[in-house]
């Protein structure tokens, strides 16, 4: 990545902020108006406050836009990081980052149908491997250990009910008197 601030990115984020402002007004004009909550006294007017806040965001957004038009881009964390180059190539780290995000998504999708224990063992193990944890057995063992430890703390000690999934499995901590 070069030292130049990512101008396009800054404008996109600012655009998204204006998008949120537009969404607030769109919701006020449609959903809240339909529910008769967009006007009236302080009790029924649910739109009053969000409208002010959205207008404030828009006003602040214009100031940011003005600053950027005058060429005053802040030196972001992304730019700061470029200075101390990590040993690995950036593109590989980017891939790993995306893979971890993808695995997190898979975790959310699997959690209820498959159950906490199996999902955690598989997905967290995969995360270890994606982040180059080697040898493989150590990553697998670490994943198993982490699953058991998390299960013990949350299910055994704190009595949190975690999804059991199709196996219907949960360690019988209550037999241990926990």
């Amino acid at each position, binding site marked *: 990545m070069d030292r130049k601030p990512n101008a396009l990115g800054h404008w996109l984020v600012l655009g998204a902020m204006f998008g949120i402002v537009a969404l607030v007004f769109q919701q006020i004009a449609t959903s809240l108006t339909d529910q008769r909550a967009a006007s009236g006294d302080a009790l029924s007017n649910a739109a009053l406050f969000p409208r002010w806040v959205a207008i404030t965001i828009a006003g602040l957004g214009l100031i940011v836009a003005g600053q950027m038009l005058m060429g005053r881009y802040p030196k972001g964390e992304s730019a700061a990081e470029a200075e101390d180059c990590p040993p690995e190539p950036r593109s590989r780290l980017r891939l790993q980052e995306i893979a971890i995000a993808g695995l997190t998504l898979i975790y959310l999708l699997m959690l209820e149908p498959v159950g906490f224990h199996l999902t955690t063992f598989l997905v967290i193990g995969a995360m270890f491997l994606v982040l180059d944890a080697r040898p493989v057995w150590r990553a697998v063992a670490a994943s198993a250990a982490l699953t058991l430890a998390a299960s013990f703390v949350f299910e055994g000690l704190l*009595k949190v*009910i975690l999804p*059991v999934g199709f*196996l219907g*499995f*949960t360690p019988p*901590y*209550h037999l241990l008197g926990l």
Partner: protein
Amino acid sequence: MKPFNHLKSAVIAGAALAALSMPASAEYPERNIQNIFPWGPGSAMAVTQIISEAMAQELGVNITVVSTPGAAGVKSFETALDKPADGYTFIDGWVAPLVLQPLVGNADWTHEDFVPLWSATAVPFAIVSRKDETRWSDFPSLIAYMKEHPGELRYSSGSIGNIPHMVMAKVMQANDVYARNIPYPQDGDAFKDLRGGLLDFTFNNPTTYRSNSDAFQVLAIMTENEADREMFDGAPLVGDFGTDMGLTGLSPTGWHWYVVKPGTPDDVVETLRTAMKAALDRDDIQEKLKATGFVPTMYSPDQYDEIVGTVGEQLISAKEAIAWEADKIAGK
């Protein structure tokens, strides 16, 4: 270490895991149960925890209370309905999400869509004002004051459209007076502002009243149940003043009935019912519940349809009182 050893230990671990998870048909319950509770922390949560804990002792597993407040309790039902109907999740079915919210069109179920366990407790409500109030001294003089100052007084039922609001609006409508209801995020904040002089009167429950009996006076208890007098230091019932609320039985109170998702196996339901009955029958549990200001109702699962059905019908008429109040305030 040879990699083969690890493979072997992995196989053993896997087999052990499988063995542990084998008895899928073993006797219910074989793991911890969760009780989905519709409100945030407070005395109602303490009540459900004490009942759950006593049930847990009967069942030999833990029962965890999960508080999922939001959308007047509807969120808790939605959360519970997303779980499998295996008896490992039950619902602390408060009247608001069970009966009231479907009535006002915020939920697409009726009470008949759930399988009842036993009824739990009920909370009677009363109208209270400050002890040092000079503008009125009892319920009739409050009504007289409101007649002279239409719409001027500020009161709170906690939130808009809840059971206390329906009951208070109904009582006021029956006397042809109205005031403005101010909603609060927590009931306690309303009681604070009553003390602070910003509100003129509020609903109240036995817990808060007893804690503040130095500051509040009960004007009328809003039930027809003689036994509720003792919860409020022998104060009068609203019927003593000739006000007919048109609400009987559980209708003017806050109450809850434990229910499970439809499709839960019959034997599982039976186990839960037995455990709940045993828990509620315990003297120490009864005492703890009463100390918290919640009266155990002890209705059996067979009475569910009749009792809850009646409440539903009566609340429809109470709902109209809220609309009447809103029209009055809008000057119609």
